[in-house]
């Protein structure tokens, strides 16, 4: 019993460390000036990519549970969500503090002219209450409402994809790939819930 719990914790620790690996590599590349000609953009884009990837991994866990009939994927949902929030926070922070140099004037000039930045900020605002209420205390306190609130993640991932789709100049292959994956993940859930209803 104790051994099983230790293994589980060790496994979780390893996954968390893996999840932090992109951050550590980016930090190293930043310090060593290896981000190329436009380092802020490289940093900003990479952090955004990872935020979306962890959001997608988090959303893939329930479909994996449905398919494998195993409970373990659900143990990683909170971690993936928080990793997504971590990368999204850095993504936003790099934009505000480095790209705009923390200037309000620059913010007011750029953001209203860019629908995709507005959508990106909206996405981030949606993630904040989810990250805050991810601690056990709130899950207990909110009860059923917690699950309703956390359905916001679907809106967040859709607006994250829209944010990506809207910013690219012409080559929409990457955002479409994410949207395709998202479509598959969501349809597995839909099919499953219909099946459960029918049974």
């Amino acid at each position, binding site marked *: 019993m104790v051994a099983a719990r230790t293994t589980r914790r060790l496994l979780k620790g390893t996954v968390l460390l893996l999840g932090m690996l992109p951050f550590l590599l980016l930090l190293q590349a930043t*310090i060593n*000036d290896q981000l*190329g*000609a436009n380092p802020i953009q490289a940093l900003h884009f990479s952090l955004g990519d990872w935020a979306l990837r962890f959001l997608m991994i988090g959303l893939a866990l329930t479909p994996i549970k449905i398919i494998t009939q195993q409970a373990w994927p659900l143990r990683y949902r909170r971690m993936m969500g928080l990793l997504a929030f971590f990368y999204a926070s850095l993504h936003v922070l790099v934009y505000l503090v*480095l790209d705009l*140099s*923390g200037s309000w004037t*620059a913010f007011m000039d750029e953001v209203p*002219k860019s629908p995709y930045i507005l959508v990106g900020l909206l996405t981030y605002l949606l993630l904040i209450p989810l990250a805050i209420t991810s601690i056990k205390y709130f899950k207990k306190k909110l009860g059923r409402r917690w699950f309703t609130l956390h359905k916001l993640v679907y809106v967040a991932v859709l607006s994250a994809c829209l944010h990506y789709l809207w910013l690219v100049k012409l080559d929409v292959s990457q955002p479409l790939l994410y949207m395709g994956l998202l479509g598959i993940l969501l349809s597995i859930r839909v099919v499953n819930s219909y099946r459960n209803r029918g049974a």
Partner: protein
Amino acid sequence: MNRHIHTQSNALRAEITDKAVFDSRRAFIKSTAMLSAGLLLPNLGQAQTEPTPALAITARAHATNYTNYYEFSTNKEDSTQLAKALKTTPWSVEVSGEIEKPGLYHLEDILKANAIQERIYRFRCVEAWSMVVPWQGFPLGEMLARFKPTSRAKFVEFTTLYNPEVMIGQRSAILNWPYVEGLRMDEAMHPLTILATGMYGEDLPNQNGAPLRLIVPWKYGFKSIKAIVKIHFRETMPDTAWHKSAPREYGFYANVNPEVSHPRWSQSRERVLGSSIFSPKRATELFNGYGAEVASLYTGMDLTQSI
């Protein structure tokens, strides 16, 4: 210590950062980056643009590894490797249309007829980044005049090589291939407009548009078409590649203008390639800082409409 190169106009003046100063700055940037990695917030409230409009030359490695060359890839770094497959010799340019001397001209003959000179220009991309590059080339107008354009020649159209076997980006229809760009005759004849064959004192690397590309310093970078194989003189305005794919976003003129935003982003500031992660963006200048030379070309035109 800074040296200055003086050419015919202020817009061509360049401030070259001495290598020692450059290196020490870099070391300083590295150490501050480590110190302030966890202390980014104190930067809040800092001014957002540089006060000095100096032309500091961009490191060659940056200018040659950050290219928009969709014929090879939509990734700015991948085109460096992919473009190596392009053979640039022999090369010829087909010159046609409203001229007295049409024909197929070999590149070596074009180069023999035009003395190569250096021009240090700021290059401003429509994606809101910029760099300063020492180009080698010759004024386009001097070459065009030798083809003896007729009175019906009002526009010049340029076409990039179409070869999807080598230019693998042309296999997908992200743009209408081949890439086409154009200039009004007076823009093409303007002394600031050059055809470039080299940069940083060497032949143009393939990813930067070898062996022959256009440079129009007061316009967004996509006007400066690469790997030119056709020059066609015409009476009507040519439809250009980016305009065809997104007419609302990319106009024929594409003059750099901080007041006219791209429909999806602001054009009032630009990120200078190679600048540290803590340096603010630069304020974009009307006509990319070449207004004294070129503004008269557009007298009476509404720059907010003719994008």
